């Protein structure tokens, strides 16, 4: 499984802080994004950044592994 977490405004639009996506061999970050974007279009309207296993990822073709932790985030507003 791929564990996908959401925070702040994205979590509110998804209606959950975490969902799980079934892992398939050869799966890439963009595959998870497309799958979830279809399910939660309003949330993905504001998604600007992604992280995998705690690291910022800009390359959406990054291959994922079984057990990868993915986060889709909107622009930050701390401080």
């Amino acid at each position: 499984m791929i564990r996908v977490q959401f925070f702040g405004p994205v979590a509110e639009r998804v209606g959950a802080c975490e969902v799980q996506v079934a892992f398939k061999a050869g799966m890439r970050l963009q595959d998870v994004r497309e799958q979830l974007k279809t399910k939660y279009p309003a949330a993905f309207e504001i998604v600007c950044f992604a992280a995998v296993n705690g690291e910022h990822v800009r390359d959406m073709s990054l291959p994922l592994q079984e057990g990868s932790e993915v986060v889709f985030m909107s622009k930050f507003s701390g401080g």
Partner: protein
Amino acid sequence: MRDPVRLQQEDFSLDEEVAALRASSKRMGGIATFIGCARDFSEGRKVTQISFDAYGSMALAEMNKLRDEAIAKFALLDARIVHRVGMVRAGEQIVFIAAGAEHRAPALQACHWLIDELKQRVPIWKKEITPQGEAWVTPHP
């Protein structure tokens, strides 16, 4: 001594943080501090509280990276960054930054750089709570 980089629900003490910074070196000739506070008015609305959500592990890692980068970039002797999460009432403190250097210029520059970078790079989100309802804040450029 408390960690120089922290995410915490409770308020922080300016005096304790500055004392901890000063304890790290007697060569410090300049200390610059920044405190971000919760305003009670925003975008034409009264704000009673601000709720902060964070991707905790990544936020802390990014804050530590920022501190390391600031120390290297501005030749600081020490720096501290504290950000609150959870519910903060209007008028309360949100974020603390301190930069200590041999001279004032790098301390002031580092303090300014740190808060600007924190806003861009640290995964924290704020929601303003008003008598009319709640709204996530869209970041200012």
